[in-house]
């Protein structure tokens, strides 16, 4: 009897240990499968935070150099200007575009990824656009096409970015 008791008391803990080990292994496998197999939710590409402190850059060309003159910016091929805006402002400009295949030269003005103006220009438009928050402002000509004699081009004139605070007395 004593041998039987010894066998019983010696066998139960190791069996429990085996069961626990098997359960842990199963949990690990199931957790791995569940986490890897679950369709991953891809986060949205976020807007970068405005730099702090914010120092206005003025208009820069595509290569990062300051634009020499904003009285006339001739865009004969796809290109862009950018400026860091640090306070609510107004962007004003005139744009002259020519069309090809019946579509004018596309003028895109974006604050971050938000479009403020994004339309083909065939002829002349004058714009005054509120820029209501700090961020990067981009002005682009982005649908260039040359099919002689048709040629899409864009000329910007009198590009001005003026803080709203400058207008208050």
């Amino acid at each position: 009897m004593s041998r039987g008791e010894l066998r019983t008391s010696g066998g139960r803990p190791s069996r429990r240990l085996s069961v626990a080990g098997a359960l842990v292994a199963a949990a690990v496998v199931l957790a791995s499968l569940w986490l890897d197999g679950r369709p991953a939710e891809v986060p949205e590409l976020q807007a970068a935070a405005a730099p702090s402190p914010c120092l206005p850059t003025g208009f820069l060309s595509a290569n990062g150099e300051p634009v020499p003159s904003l009285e006339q910016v001739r865009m004969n091929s796809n290109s862009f200007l950018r400026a860091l805006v640090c306070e609510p402002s107004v962007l004003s400009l005139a744009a002259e575009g020519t069309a090809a295949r019946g579509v004018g030269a596309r003028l895109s003005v974006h604050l971050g990824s938000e479009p403020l103006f994004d339309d083909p220009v065939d002829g002349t438009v004058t714009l005054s656009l509120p820029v209501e928050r700090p961020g990067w402002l981009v002005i682009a000509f982005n649908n260039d096409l040359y099919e002689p004699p048709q040629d899409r081009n864009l000329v910007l004139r009198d590009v001005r970015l003026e803080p709203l605070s400058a207008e208050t007395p």
Partner: protein
Amino acid sequence: MRYPALLTFLAAALVIGLLAWGRREVQVAAPSLLALTAPESVVADERVTVYGGVLVPEGRYELGTYSCQAGRCSRSLWLTLEGPQEVWRSLGSVSFARSGEPATVELRAFRADDPSGAVVAVWTRPVSVLPAPSEAE
């Protein structure tokens, strides 16, 4: 070994927690957008270049720009960027063949050193495709 059920539960919770934490870490680091000139509407077959500024964190990333319509996406840019840096450039161009059908512009960011090629962040916006002038007449 007096509490095998409790041990099992704690071990499973630890494993699940660690794996979830690992996945969360991968998702946090991703490029962010300074600006993007993706169009909201285009004319069919009009090719529009997308310009943008991207803030790239520490690490190697890949960017792809896609035009998607009728269940198909065509890629116009595949760019490898080493962070940390700020990049301003053309991010490819988008074009859509069929007017009136739903379309999207997508910018996808991948970790270059991730062999699974998982997308770490995506930017998607719908685009209205208008008929070309010759088509409209």
